[in-house]
């Protein structure tokens, strides 16, 4: 348990710093609220449309691929911690074993790249009917800056 003290100190210091930064800026900072200031904004631009839109499935695909490769890498970690200090027979056996393991990993990676799973092009991931409505007009029309509707 003693080995955790360093981590606990780090967590405590990080918590103190975070709480101090947030609470001090809240206490000391000037608060002049105008309707314009408290209106929602998006990257400095007035938002257009609802924020509660459905997201394209390509986000999900990237996330699930990340998880699967993440889990494969987790197994490498436990192997790396013992590889150097082991006897030669274990090193040889576990190395070949790891190569076999990694070959399926690489197979999955090649498949993901070949079929364009991490391709960000919407023409391959979106429903064709939806594609004509949403993506193509956006590509043609330039975004128009709209003047703020409330406040000044």
């Amino acid at each position: 348990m003693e080995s955790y003290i360093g981590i606990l100190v780090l967590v405590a210091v990080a918590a103190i710093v975070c709480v101090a930064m947030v609470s001090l800026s809240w206490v000391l900072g000037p608060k002049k609220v105008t309707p314009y200031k408290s209106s929602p904004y998006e990257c400095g631009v007035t938002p257009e449309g609802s924020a509660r839109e459905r997201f394209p499935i390509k986000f999900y695909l990237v996330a699930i691929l990340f998880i699967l490769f993440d889990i494969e890498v987790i197994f490498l970690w436990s192997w790396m911690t013992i590889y150097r200090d082991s006897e030669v027979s274990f090193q040889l056996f576990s190395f070949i074993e790891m190569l076999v393991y990694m070959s399926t990993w690489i197979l999955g990676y090649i498949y993901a790249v070949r079929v364009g799973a991490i391709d960000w092009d919407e023409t391959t991931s979106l429903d064709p009917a939806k594609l004509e409505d949403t993506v193509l007009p956006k590509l043609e029309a330039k975004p128009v800056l709209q003047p703020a509707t409330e406040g000044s």
Partner: protein
Amino acid sequence: MPVQVTPDLMIFGLLAGLAAMTAVGVVAFRNAVRSALCLVLNFFTLAFLYFTLRAELLGMTQIIVYTGAIMVLFLFVIMLLNLGSLQVLDERPDLIKKGLGFLFGGALFGLIATQVVQPFLQTSQQFAPEGFGSPQAVGRTLFTSYVWPFEIASILLLIGIVGSILLAKRRI
């Protein structure tokens, strides 16, 4: 058997209580994003429970995989489904459904209890020996006793990759 309140027990009580409360929060909150954030906290406290049991590898894996990756996926799913107004989720109270729910829930609880209580009462040792759940020990066991499950896990992950791409991709 009188229970002695030790610092270990207090830490366990704190973590277990927090884990149980956040688990209730996951099902009790009506807003899906709040439920998901409760789940983050639940995974996190579970990881700390693993640390107190000296299962370091499991605890770190819990944080990296579950709180890091799987929660992001959950949030993506919430955004994909786009749960609009919460009134849609309202259901008419159905006594048969409720009764069956309690019945099956109780049965599941009983099933788990029969498996857990007996070994729990027989344990005399409070902790696993030092280094029991360390990455070194797990790595050593993985390449001696559990080589085949390890390889099968990699094939399972490959199937997961191919399956998820096939399901989510419109045109391959």
